[in-house]
């Protein structure tokens, strides 16, 4: 039997590798589940939500009150029972297929009232106060009532759901819909409600679409990707290019948060999650494997019993190193495959072959780097406990706290978060820890440095490309190994 096969088997069946593989499987299960949660919380089960808009007009001595029930997709909801207590009586109606329910209420001359409407569906009852004015020139007609809803055709995107009921029950005329991209969404910056029109006009906003002759309309918010993650403003202009009242009785801009969930985005989250998972476990696995199958054997003298056999020092070093790396490669591949299966189970996609190759290759290079470092230490540190201690320190510094170290260095240098100096320093320091390899790869893949905390801009601005990251990866995979090999030949 070839000794390397024994060594690979020994590594693969070691407690370290098995336990870490099990943990990867467990955490990827949790990750898949959590990502699925992210997905569904961004896309609440919109079909179960009912929103009620209303408007009224006067016909003779009666109000004609119209309610419009729609769900979170902007789809009409029928059989919603609507009741209103008004003038000591209760009036009820049920929404029809189009979501409308009509109620006829007597006009009480000179009286302004705020009755409560209760509407019930599926055993839920929701109450809302409405204002009924004493004359026919009231605010709740001829106003566009707009809500942001989930686009039923693409649950990661949005639509505008519009209800309009004009004087005497007329439909809306032609409306031009415009939008404008506002601030980036961040803690403290979120969109919602209406904003003053300011100097908004058709010329400083972007045309989206036009709608004509409708009571209700549903327009998909197909905005460019630059709008993603931002506050957006919507304005309705009439044919005279004047801004119309929306959701309030004054001309206004509508303000929404706009964050889409695309398949690409979910994948990105999955890769980032994977990054976090593997960034922790792969260095841990490499360090433990290196310690248990080489360092400990070396420090305790066990390796001598093998070295006395017909093999050179370099031969033994290389054979152990490669058996370790092959075993870790197999473990990474199994881990990636398991994660992919979970991703498919929870999120409905398989990663592309390119992504899989990139993940496996990058993490194998990372593992080779850590393994090489431990092998070098094994030759420099003679006692088992000092070697174990040093291995733990390597893990803590390079794998666990490197991000903190980057922050501290930047803090000491006085670089502000998000500045060019900060980003530059973060990238230089990232290249010094093998743990940053996949973060850099992912940054190139996603075209953004957002995976490096506090960094801004695009990777290419800082020379981070597939080529440069691959070169860093190769250096990390090869240099510690070669150094260790050299030391193993020259030193006891």
């Amino acid at each position, binding site marked *: 039997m070839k*000794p390397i096969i024994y060594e690979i088997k020994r590594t693969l069946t070691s407690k370290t590798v098995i336990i870490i593989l099990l943990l990867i499987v467990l955490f990827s299960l949790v990750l898949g589940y959590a990502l699925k949660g992210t997905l569904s919380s961004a896309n609440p089960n919109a079909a179960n939500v009912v929103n009620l808009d209303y408007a009224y007009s006067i016909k003779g001595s009666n109000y004609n009150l119209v309610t419009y029930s729609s769900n979170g997709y902007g789809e009409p909801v029928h059989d919603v029972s609507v009741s209103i207590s008004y003038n000591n009586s209760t009036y009820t109606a049920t929404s029809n297929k189009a979501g409308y329910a009509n109620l006829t209420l007597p006009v009480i001359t000179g009286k302004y009232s705020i009755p409560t409407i209760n509407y019930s569906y599926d055993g839920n009852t929701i109450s809302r106060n409405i204002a009924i004015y004493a004359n026919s020139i009231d605010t709740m007609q001829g106003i566009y009532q707009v809500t942001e809803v989930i686009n039923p055709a693409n649950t990661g995107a949005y639509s505008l759901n519009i209800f309009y009921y004009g004087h005497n029950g007329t439909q809306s005329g032609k409306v031009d819909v415009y939008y404008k991209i506002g601030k980036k969404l961040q803690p403290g910056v979120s969109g919602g409600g209406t904003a003053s029109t300011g100097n908004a006009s058709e010329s400083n906003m972007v045309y989206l679409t036009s709608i004509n002759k409708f009571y209700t309309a549903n327009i998909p918010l197909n905005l460019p990707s630059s709008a993603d993650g931002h506050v957006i403003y919507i304005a309705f202009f009439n044919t005279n290019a004047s801004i119309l009242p929306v959701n309030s009785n004054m001309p206004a801009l509508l303000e929404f948060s706009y964050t889409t969930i695309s398949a690409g985005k979910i994948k990105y989250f999955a890769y980032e999650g994977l990054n976090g998972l593997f960034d922790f476990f792969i260095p841990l696995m490499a360090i433990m494997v290196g310690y248990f199958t080489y360092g400990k054997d070396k420090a305790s*003298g*066990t390796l*001598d*019993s093998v070295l*006395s056999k017909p*093999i050179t020092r370099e031969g033994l070093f290389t054979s152990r190193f490669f058996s370790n790396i092959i075993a870790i490669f197999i473990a990474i591949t199994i881990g990636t495959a398991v994660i992919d299966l979970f991703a498919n189970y929870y999120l409905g996609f398989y990663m592309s072959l390119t992504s899989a190759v990139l993940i496996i290759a990058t993490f194998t290079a990372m593992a080779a780097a850590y393994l090489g470092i431990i092998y070098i230490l094994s030759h420099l540190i003679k006692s088992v406990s000092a070697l174990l201690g040093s291995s733990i320190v390597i893990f803590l510094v390079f794998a666990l706290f490197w991000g903190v170290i980057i922050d501290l260095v930047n803090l000491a240098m006085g670089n502000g978060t998000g500045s060019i100096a900060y980003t530059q320093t973060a990238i230089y320091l990232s290249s010094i820890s093998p743990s940053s390899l996949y973060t850099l790869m992912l940054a190139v893949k996603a075209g953004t440095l957002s995976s490096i905390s506090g960094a801004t801009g695009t990777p290419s601005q800082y020379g981070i490309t597939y080529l440069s990251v691959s070169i860093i990866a190769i250096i990390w995979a090869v240099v510690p190994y070669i150094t260790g090999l050299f030391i193993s030949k020259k030193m006891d």
Partner: protein
Amino acid sequence: MIKIKNLTKYFKKNGKAAVSSLDLTINDGEITGFAGLNGAGKTTTIRMIAGVTLPSSGTVTVDGADIVHDKVKASKSIGWVPELPNFEPQAKSISLMIYYAGFYGIDYKTAKNRAIEILKEVNIYDARKMKLINYSQGMKKRFSLASCMIIEPQNFLFDEILNGLDPEGIQFMRNYMKELKKKNKAVFLSTHILSELQNLADKVAIINNGKLVTIIKPDELENVTKSTITIKIKNIDDKIMNILQPYGKAKVEGGEIVLTDIQKDFSDLNTLLVKNNYIVTGFSVEGESLEDYFFKLIGGDNKK
């Protein structure tokens, strides 16, 4: 055959040499003893021969192959049983022997059969299901020997192998070494108990403070085990040497005459001395062991 030339080992730069300019040849068909006190440099020498410690200078040639520059070839003809054998703790004997056999290019099946055969021979086959970490020191020595026997190398290095064995084990090892000698193998056996080598070694290299003190040849080995006569005389003069000369080698040591290499019957010696007007205050006859001889040899070096 192992040729050691000018072998030197410094563990620390500018420190004391653990082994210093050692020259020694370990011949085929011989059991070469290697004796020295604790810390004398026996283990360091043996580890350098085994190829697990790198010499600082000097060479070790094993059947023509240099242990440093031609290690694979040299290692093929060495079987080493270390002082404190240490193996992959979680492994079991048979699978570890199959792994070792792989270094000699022996296939799985052959290796397994051979392993079982050898483990029975060294009497640890019953422990085959036990992890090596749970072996006793003596069992580890037996396993270490077993792992050398996979291919029966030409040269054997036994570092304090009798130490820690039970009487049955000691008997087995002594017989085993004699067997190896009969098969024309070269055996190198270290010990700090010189008497272990009596009736076993063909020659004994004495090492002290890393330096080779002497090599006791087979005929000397026989001689030194003969008696020594210590005579205390008050009025020593030059003439006395003429009287003692026919009896053996006489030396004056601290007011005493020590007579070694006894050549003739000395029963009349005391009377003869008295007749010649010497005042004899003490006359003792001792059978000197290797041990005494050894301490005598290194005594001067060792007074610190």
